[in-house]
């Protein structure tokens, strides 16, 4: 009877609300969205996850950020900056009018304190990000209270000196942990710093029921460049993906992202919803990583054969188009990506020939370690079928993410594993140096978990990292991409795209390739009373 009752109520085939028809962005309304996980902490020194970043970027404004919808750096707290030619000294001039939400002015010492706090805090993941700063290792080791490489000539100037040149360091200063923190506030609130933010961003915390609902209101003393159109922004925590979609359809949410494949297929098939779906490529690369020190993957012919075997077009289809076939590690928008390179074609004959040359013409049996993730599973199963066509039997082993992470970085770990990499910044160092430089190899927790060491690549990466000229860097990274394509430590599969479906009255949404979601230009086209207009 209930089924019949439910069946009688017509399914929603389109949005319940529509735009009021305003032509120009304006303030007002509450923007409501939900996330699958919960916010672990609002302390920028330790928060290092997508969800916390959504919250922190509303509350704080670091020296730099990315222009909406792009990976181009723009000044936020910094009104201008200079970098020396050899990329060792970074000089910032701060805006004079930036204030914390309690009205006190932001000074350069607040940024210095934030950076030093990351170095001093034992469980901060960011100390390694500042490893090149002169004197950073002394602060990390508790041998010095202050970092010699960070100075504040006056209240509005901050100078950071690096021990080793690093042209990509500028991107570090867009991360939330580098945003200003007032030392007296951090000392006063103690352990409560995780839920008592004092930021200089466009919004300030209104209320936070942990694990349930996080609400911010516009910061009245904010004077920066972000328009902050919605009066309030509300984030519901811990809501499953399919539930988020139901809430969106019912009008309980204004926008939803990362829809499950069936929901995405459905929404793309609905003429009244279709135009409100936005897709954008993220700064990530998915595929499979080889341990190149282990048989049979110590033979480049086997690694190339596996690359030829993968049918990338089929994978993109499985992922409902949310995937761009990859030719290498660098996603679109990252400096030095060689757009002339093509992904390995799906060439069964070539793959068979290479395996034959390597002595595996009669067959090969391998084990793939992967994680229990919807997309990773689809990718693994599709690859399993592709490999079967070239005479390779692949057994799939699914493990918990924590087990996977621990196993991958250890010497002698899985020879073949699913791999996904989301760059910390759009600088190529965050992809290539982190994953393939021989300096990133260690025995127990190796970031270079392919254990790939190639002196030619090391030379190119070192030269590119220390060169302040971006044209030179582009040339060097193009060359590095070609080296890796020829001697692949991964099966490059695809760059993931994220999708966001918004109500018709949500305007100005510009998905960020770096932050995934960026609400800085969003406005709500509501009626004169601030209400949603029903269709």
């Amino acid at each position: 009877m209930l089924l019949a009752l439910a069946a009688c109520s017509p399914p929603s085939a389109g949005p319940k609300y529509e735009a009021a028809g305003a032509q120009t962005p304006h303030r007002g309304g509450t923007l409501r969205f939900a996330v699958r996980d919960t916010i672990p902490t609002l302390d920028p020194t330790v928060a290092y996850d997508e969800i916390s970043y959504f919250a922190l970027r509303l509350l704080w404004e670091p020296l730099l950020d990315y222009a909406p919808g792009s990976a181009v750096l723009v000044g936020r707290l910094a009104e201008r900056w200079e970098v020396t030619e050899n990329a060792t000294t970074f000089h910032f001039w701060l805006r004079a009018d930036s204030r914390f939400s309690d009205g006190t002015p932001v000074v350069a010492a607040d940024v210095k304190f934030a950076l030093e706090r990351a170095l001093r805090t034992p469980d901060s993941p960011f100390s390694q990000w500042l490893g090149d700063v002169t004197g950073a290792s002394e602060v990390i080791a508790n041998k010095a209270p202050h970092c010699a490489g960070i100075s504040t000539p006056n209240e509005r100037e901050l100078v950071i000196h690096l021990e080793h040149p690093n042209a990509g360091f500028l991107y570090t200063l867009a991360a939330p942990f580098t945003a200003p923190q007032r030392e007296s506030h951090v000392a006063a609130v103690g352990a409560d710093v995780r839920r008592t933010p004092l930021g200089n961003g466009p919004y300030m915390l209104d209320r936070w029921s942990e694990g349930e609902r996080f609400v911010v209101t516009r910061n009245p003393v904010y004077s920066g460049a972000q328009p902050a159109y919605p009066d309030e922004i509300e984030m519901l925590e811990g809501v499953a993906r399919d539930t988020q979609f139901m809430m969106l359809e019912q009008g309980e949410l204004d926008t939803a992202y990362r829809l499950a494949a069936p929901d995405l297929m459905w929404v793309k098939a609905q003429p009244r919803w279709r135009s409100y779906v936005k897709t954008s490529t993220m700064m990530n690369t998915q595929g499979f990583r080889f341990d190149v020190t282990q048989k049979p993957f110590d033979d480049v012919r086997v690694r190339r054969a596996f690359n030829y075997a993968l049918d990338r077009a089929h994978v993109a289809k499985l992922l409902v188009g949310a995937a761009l076939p990859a030719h290498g590690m660098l996603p679109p928008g990252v400096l030095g990506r060689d757009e002339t390179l093509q992904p390995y074609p799906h060439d069964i004959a070539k793959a068979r020939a290479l395996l034959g040359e390597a002595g595996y013409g009669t067959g090969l049996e391998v084990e793939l370690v992967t994680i229990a993730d919807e997309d990773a599973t689809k990718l693994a199963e599709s690859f399993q079928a592709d490999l079967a066509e070239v005479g390779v039997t692949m057994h799939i082993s699914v493990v918990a993410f924590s087990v996977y992470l621990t196993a991958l970085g250890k010497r002698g770990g899985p020879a073949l594993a699913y791999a996904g990499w989301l760059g910390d910044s759009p600088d190529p160092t965050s992809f290539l140096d982190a994953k393939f430089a021989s300096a990133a190899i260690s025995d127990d927790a190796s970031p270079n978990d392919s254990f790939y060491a190639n002196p030619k690549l090391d030379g190119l990466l070192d030269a590119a990292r220390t060169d302040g000229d971006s044209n030179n860097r582009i040339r060097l990274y193009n060359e590095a991409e070609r080296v890796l394509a020829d001697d692949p430590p991964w099966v490059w599969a695809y760059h993931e795209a994220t999708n966001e479906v918004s109500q018709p009255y949500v305007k100005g949404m510009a998905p960020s390739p770096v932050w995934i979601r960026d609400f800085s230009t969003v406005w709500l086209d509501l009626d004169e009373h601030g209400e949603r207009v029903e269709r």
Partner: protein
Amino acid sequence: MSLTLRFVVRRVGWAFVVAWFAISVTFAMVVAIPADPAKALLGPHATEETIKRVQEHYCLDRGFAGQYACWMSNVVHGDLGESYRTKRPVTEILAERIGPTVMLALAAIFLQIVIGVPLGIIAAWRKGQWPDRAAGLVGLIGQSAPPFFVGTLVLYLFAFRLGWFPISGYGSGLLGHVRHLVLPAMTLATVGIALYARVTRSELIDSLGEDYVRTARAKGVRERDVLLRHALRPALGPLVTLIGVDLGVLVGGAVVVEYIFAWPGLGREVLAGIFALDLPLILGVVLISAFAIAIANLFADLAYLWLDPRLRDR
């Protein structure tokens, strides 16, 4: 000291032993997982130096005995440690999450009793007739349907399609909580309703065959009174034990139901803790769970004593 009081003191003492045993076994199981919590916390970008710092900070660089000693020394001082993931004292998290979980558990048990017991009574009263068969069918469906299926179904029907209840969350204010509570409580109670109906039915059928029931009938007592006053009370004993066990288990966290309905209780919290290998949080929830089961069983036994005075002298 009365016999009952001595019984209570002994059982509370046992609760501590059970709790210690449960957290020690859980500790051993989590430490035995071939995964490093520091790596899980810091993610794939972490360097070996950063991982070592975090391992030292949380005693993870020590062997099993060292880690156990480090954690237990804090526990005996009443400090359950700090969650790796949220950097928040575990006691604070438990204090915040226990309320919604207890509310959900009590609501589910309430539904199990008010729906399951009458179903069982009707089935026993009309044994072999259509009400009995109908109740049996309802019970079979209830016991066979897993909570993830029932939860998703009721969410889709009653919240999404019919709009009678909110889709997700906890709500605010008493009325808000109650509106948000209905669907998760119904989902959680489905299996229990079926079980309570079956137990009530079988105990009541046994009880109806006893001599004292025959005597009551022979004395001309009305059938309704025979059923509800003479036969039902002794039949409720096993049900009380079931309620005790259920209450304890449900307080330990209804993981699936809390996840589906975004109910901010212990179950959803421990799920996030398990994914992050957040050992202090996992142990905190196990501790609460062990105590809840022990205490709920104690109350069930006391209720049993009240229901059956013959046991008080044993």
